[in-house]
């Protein structure tokens, strides 16, 4: 018994392994897969082109995409097509990251946010407006009016990942 109290006493003077969540948050690993974000280009256009390959890749059938046509008058993303509806059911999502792998434009990225809680099932469905990141400085909100012939390509030129 004395040995047991000694262990307790010893622990009083060591650094605690627990942290005071939510006041204190542990930094996550670099490759942590948390809640998705939909990225934008620097000019504010969405990277997502509504191709629904993420939905096709999703093993949990958590993603739902509907596409519509861009025009130069009302442009959401480069190229001809954008996602008019983009929904992820976070209750279904298993955070496997296949959507990120499938994305041809690096639009969907599993970021660091893991604080997901819902009072009902409906609020577990994240819409495009909830998923998309803020307009970067210097960018414009979409839909944008763009000059004809400038944004004709959906897929940007990309390099292979280096790390």
């Amino acid at each position: 018994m004395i040995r047991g109290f000694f262990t307790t006493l010893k622990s009083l003077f060591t650094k605690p392994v627990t942290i005071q969540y939510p006041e204190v948050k542990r930094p996550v690993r670099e490759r942590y897969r948390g809640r998705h974000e939909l990225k934008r280009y620097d000019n504010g256009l969405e990277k997502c082109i509504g191709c629904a390959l993420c939905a096709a890749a999703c093993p949990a059938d958590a993603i739902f995409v509907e596409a519509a046509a861009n025009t130069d008058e009302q442009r959401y993303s480069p190229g001809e097509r954008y996602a008019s509806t983009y929904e992820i059911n976070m209750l279904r999502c298993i955070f496997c990251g296949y959507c990120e792998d499938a994305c041809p434009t690096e639009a969907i990225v599993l970021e660091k946010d893991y604080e997901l809680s819902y009072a009902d099932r409906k609020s577990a469905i994240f819409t495009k407006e909830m998923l998309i990141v803020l307009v970067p400085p210097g960018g414009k909100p979409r839909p944008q009016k763009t000059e004809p012939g400038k944004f004709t390509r959906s897929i940007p030129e990309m390099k292979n990942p280096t790390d």
Partner: protein
Amino acid sequence: MDKLVSLTIDGRAVQAPAGTLIIDAAKKAGIVIPVFCYHPKLEPVGMCRMCLVDIGRPAIDRATGQPILNPDGTPKIQFGKLDTACTTPISEGMVVWGATEKVMSARKSMLEFLLTSHPLDCPICDKGGECPLQNQTMKFGPGDSRFIYDEKIHLRKKMPLGDLIMLDRERCIQCARCIRFQDQVVDEPVIGFYQRGRPLEIVSYSEPGFDSIFSGNTTDICPVGALTTTDFRFGARPWEMQPEASICTQCPVGCNINYDVRREARSAGKIVIKRVMPRQNESVNEIWICDKGRFTYHYVESPQRLTSPLVRQNGELKPVPWEEALTAAADKIRTAGSNLVTVAGGRLLNEDLYALKQMNQAIHGSIFHYSRMGGAGWVNRVGMAPGSNLADLGKGDAILVFASDLHEEAPIWWLRVKQAADRGAALIVANARPTRLNKHAAHGIKYRYGEEESALQELLAGESDAAKAFSSSKNAVIFLGSDGMGAAQVEAAAALASELLVKTDHFGKPNNGLVVVWQAANELGASMLGLSPSPTLGEKLGAAMGVYIAGADPVADDPDLNDAIQRAAFVIVQDMFLSETAKLADVVLPVQAVMEREGSLVSGERRVQLVYPAIPALEGTRPDFSITNEIAARLDVKLDLSAPEQIFDRLAQSERAFSGLSYERLAETQPQWPEVGDKDLYFGGTSFKNKEGLGVVPDLSHEMAEPSAGAKFQERAAVQYGEWLAVPVTSVYHQDVYVASAELLKNRIPSEAILMHPADATALGASSGGKLTLKWGIHSYEGSLAVDANLPQGVILVRRDMGIPLQQPTAVRVTPATNQSESDR
């Protein structure tokens, strides 16, 4: 049967008839040779070079003419350079290698070339997921390109070829399938190649762009995403949709189609139709459908559809619950008793018609089939026999197309008749005005509107070349339309046509018989169930206590019927929309559309086919048969009709015309050539494989009535001085709600209801585009005029369903509407 030729493909012994192309022989043996430009329905051109194979032929000693043998006694095979499998016919002893290193490397190089300027559009391309180029690149192509990325040629994307078809020039691999389809299959060569080499592009020559009723099919056979429909543009990815089998109800051909459906957030979570695709049925529509069938499905989602029963209260139609409406309808029918006249239209499925018939029998009322056509009785006797297929007609056979502009009335029949003529069938086109079919006709018969009888009598007399060609043919089919004729005239013409068939012994056997080009989808079903139209429907309706109208809009069609229906004590209408007839009704019962239903219908070629429910029914609507069943129950008539299949089983037992049929039999399929869909996308295109039933053609009625001279053409409309003969004609696109609901087709619907010869128009002081007033009896209607120098003089053609309810040849008084309004001032 052609001589069989033996050869070896990929080490397998294959036998095929002489003249078969290597590619087809391989396909039939289950060996895949990839292609882009070859299509089994088109002439081979060997443009894409994807089907290169190593072909070896037995070496022949020139001196002796004998095959040279190897030391082991086998014939020596000589191989040369790679050759195209799509242009080389098979020959005896040939050895074909399609999967060797040499061939594979050729395929890899071909794909590398095709991809030099192909954009990386797959994620946003409507073809992505069902794209032969995509699939074959994955299977045979190189992982990398040796070409310089920056040297890709950039051409114009998003280039509309007319309202319906979108072209992406970058994606085109120049296989010319679309151009060849338009040229060879449908003979509407409105698109073509422009320039040559790398800048070669597809252009449309016509105004409006891509002016063809079959244009949608080019998107099915395009092996890349160069041609897509504007209707479906970015609608969904192919793998996200569920195909649901159905039958097109826009005309009597009965094309087998699939509705591709998907649940959509945009449509408030409802399952909606995203596109219409052909479903292969080589006896009906092969792998084609017309643009009308492909794009008119939008009526099902029209906001104008009725969603609640309406009952007239204090002179106004008010929405009421179903119970109340059904009780109101039943109460009214009880008061009428046997004085009820039921009118059943050609929109109804067999099951609905049977329910109406049963209820009518129980209450001893009278029931009529509502039709603007006639001749069903004759078709039941001398219609197309089981085993018929228009594709079997060719050399030595004859087809008579009488008083029908098939291109407008039933486009797929036009296509199949034209192809039969291409194969050598003697095509006889008899019409009062030139039609598109005349170009392919061996014999043209021209008569004047109103002289149909004498034209048929002349054929019966058998003196003319056309008559001789018809009577001496092996097989003969008559297509009888309603160009310039009303129901009575068509009935009389059908009698004479039947007489002609019987006289020349062209009935009761496969590939022979009479086909009436109906105006509604299931008119033949009604007649097979024993319902017939009444030539004096107006009088009968006028004398009735009450009228029960299902699936018809007689008020819009005929001002006389309008008057009669107005006189009835009550009117009950079953319809999808608040039609002109429904506006007069006391009780309106909203029904489901065909794509929301299960049931069966009968095509003009007598094929009984199944429709399956594709989308959930609109809330508040019910199927026609169930409404009839409910009303009958309230009249203490126990019909006990609860489900389509149960009804069909009952009608198959009680109706001789349907005996021996069941949903199982209608759903039977068998292998068809060419193979399409699924893994055969590269070969036949994206038309769907038929897994849901080819339908069954039941036996003809056995009691072969002697053709009688009983049916008489009505006296030709007496045209007084100052009057004109006006006749009804059909145009493929019109203002009927089912067609007009499709936004895309709006520009294709002609704005003119009246057609005449320019000389006549000048005589009347009218000009093209101007308005004319037509008056007959107490009726007066206004419509725009189009002039056409090909039309006969002295007659006015009135398009059906364009606002002028002219149903039979009528003598009318014509005045230019503008002049009148000026003189009024």
